[in-house]
């Protein structure tokens, strides 16, 4: 890969939330929801961000969208005019011209569309906000967008309640694409959908990406969904990035014990498949009070003394394969075939 090919370069991103107690809401501590996360997304690729609840994947996505301000770190974005901008310190006004270039697809297809606005108004609003005042032109553009996402343009004057979950998610995608964004952040876009509809939406995202050369940050908890859509996969655990590699590589040869355990915990739809005998013990650590050393050591079957005391650093173990584990070199972990 050439050094200029990235679209987004996240460096040492941190976001902590204060813990308040008592009648005067005194700050008694902090939860490091995102703890020193760095990764890049190349133009035209899909990066899958996976982890269990509370791992900081959504907070990371929201910081990139600047729906919240990061505590520290840089979010370098290559804008359409070729400039590299750090999104992290920008004010609302400064972000405004960049907003059309970074768009979001939401998880809940029911909550994310305004029920009092027609599909035309829902999808057309980003266009209106960004200066497309001519209604005729908006109608044409919305019709194109609906067609692009597999919906019938003649339905654009209906209200969201007339559509099923899968169709609403298509509408959400059409709205995200309205401003021709360079980066689309999709936070669990299929987790609220039924299996038979989920496949349609995943296929749509794959097709749109190839057609429009989209760059996608795909946040999900479901590893099988992530594998279907991603070029590269990043795994988070208690606010930290623990592993990052190409989808092929990370599933075939995971190097972090957590990644391997996460993969084998997914129930395989085959009654002959071995069933979760290797389940991890214990539960996800509390990000407000993480264990010393490696955050994963209390649950890790391979933990040594060093894991209990020293925090491992993320390092490149192979070209393009990052892992945060003291024992990554010696461990032989099994992935899932493919």
């Amino acid at each position, binding site marked *: 890969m050439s050094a200029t090919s990235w679209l987004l370069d996240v460096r040492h991103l941190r976001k902590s939330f204060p813990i308040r107690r008592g009648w005067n809401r005194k700050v008694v501590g902090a939860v490091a929801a995102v703890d020193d996360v760095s990764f890049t997304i190349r133009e035209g690729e899909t990066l899958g961000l996976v982890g269990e609840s509370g791992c900081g994947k959504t907070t990371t996505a929201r910081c990139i969208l600047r729906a919240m301000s990061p505590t520290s770190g840089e979010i370098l974005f290559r804008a359409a005019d070729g400039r590299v901008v750090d999104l992290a310190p920008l004010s609302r006004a400064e972000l405004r011209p960049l907003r059309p270039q970074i768009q979001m697809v939401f998880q809940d297809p029911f909550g994310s569309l305004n029920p009092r606005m027609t599909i035309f108004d829902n999808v057309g609003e980003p266009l209106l906000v960004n200066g497309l005042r001519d209604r005729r032109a908006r109608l044409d553009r919305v019709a194109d967008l609906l067609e692009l996402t597999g919906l019938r343009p003649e339905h654009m004057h209906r209200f969201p309640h007339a559509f*099923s979950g899968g169709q609403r998610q298509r509408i959400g995608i059409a709205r995200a694409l309205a401003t021709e964004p360079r980066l689309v952040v999709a936070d669990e876009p299929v987790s609220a959908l039924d*299996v038979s509809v989920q496949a349609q939406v995943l296929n749509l995202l794959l097709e749109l990406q190839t057609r429009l050369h989209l760059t996608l940050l795909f946040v999900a908890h479901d590893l099988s969904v992530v594998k279907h859509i991603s070029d590269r996969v990043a795994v988070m655990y208690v606010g930290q990035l623990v592993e990052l590699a190409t989808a092929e590589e990370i599933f075939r040869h995971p190097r972090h014990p957590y990644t391997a355990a996460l993969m084998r*915990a*997914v129930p395989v739809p*085959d009654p002959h498949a071995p069933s979760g005998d290797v389940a991890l013990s214990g539960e996800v650590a509390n990000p407000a009070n993480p264990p010393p050393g490696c955050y994963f050591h209390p649950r890790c079957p391979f933990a040594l003394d060093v894991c209990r005391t020293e925090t491992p650093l993320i390092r490149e173990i192979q070209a393009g394969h990052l892992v945060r584990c003291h024992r990554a070199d010696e461990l032989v972990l099994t992935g*899932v075939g493919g």
Partner: protein
Amino acid sequence: MTTPVLEVKDLRVHFFLDEGLVRAVDGVSFEVQPGQVVGIVGESGCGKSVTMKAILQIVEPPGRIVGGQILFHKNSGAPVDLTQLSPKSAELRAIRGAEIALIPQEPMAAFSPVHSVGAQVIEALKLHERQWRPSGPPLSRTEARSMTVDLFRSVGISMPEERVDAYSWQLSGGLRQRAMIAMALSCRPRLLIADEPTTAIDVTTQAQILNLLRDLQRRHGTAIVFITHDLGVIAQMARYVVVMYLGRVVEQGAVEQIFHEPKHPYTRALLKSIPSVTVAPRTLLPTIAGSIPHPLGRPRGCPFHPRCPDAIPGLCAERVPALRPVGPTQLASCFLYNRDEAVEP
């Protein structure tokens, strides 16, 4: 063949809404053998949860059981038809919680936040004392407490002596679900209904809970009706599978048959459309055309025909296929296998 624990025969549960009639469950039949895990799987609106509620007689109005039988076979004596019992009758309340227990989807909502989890298990033990212990002296508080501690230990809760006094909101999702399982098992039920017990839980914790349920099932031989939308979970848990679509059973059979030789076009398409961790990255998935119809706009004939690739013109849109054998332990309701047998509307 041994006597089943539960026989559901042609169950119909309809919801009488202002907008019209919703046939949420429309002619569902299956059996649960002693010690068997039966999985009920389907997408939203297929009627799997309403079936569960009908078994426990907790269908809320405007829903009503309008037909069919739910025969529950106790250890001894004649089977009871649960549909004939009033939801508030002493007889049904003696069965509910004691002989048929439920593991709900959301343990946070199921536990009372103002009583400790231990107190709630003790309450269940005392309430159903005569069902699980027909004779003997009345259960004392200390005895009930030590039983609860033992139950907590058996479901893998660490430090059970302290955890019995914890409130549900102090426990993590996994521990809460374990406490719920302890409560469900406290009265040694003959039948356990698990309604999406791991849907609200993370995947590594889900693996632990599924292992625990499998292990407890093996040890106690409890029959389980396992309801989920996750085909992966079903494949790992159930011996016998019932696939539902829009209130009807489309196919049922032994788990190997359902997953390796699915007969109904819906089952086949559904299995193909699941994303899998074992395929190559970035591949298109086979899909099922269209979406699940609105419950009020249920299609005529076979409910799946508008989305079915194999629909027979003039037949599938007109008549409803009956559930008929298509293999030694497999039934399907599809005209591809039985052209002549339809259900009378």
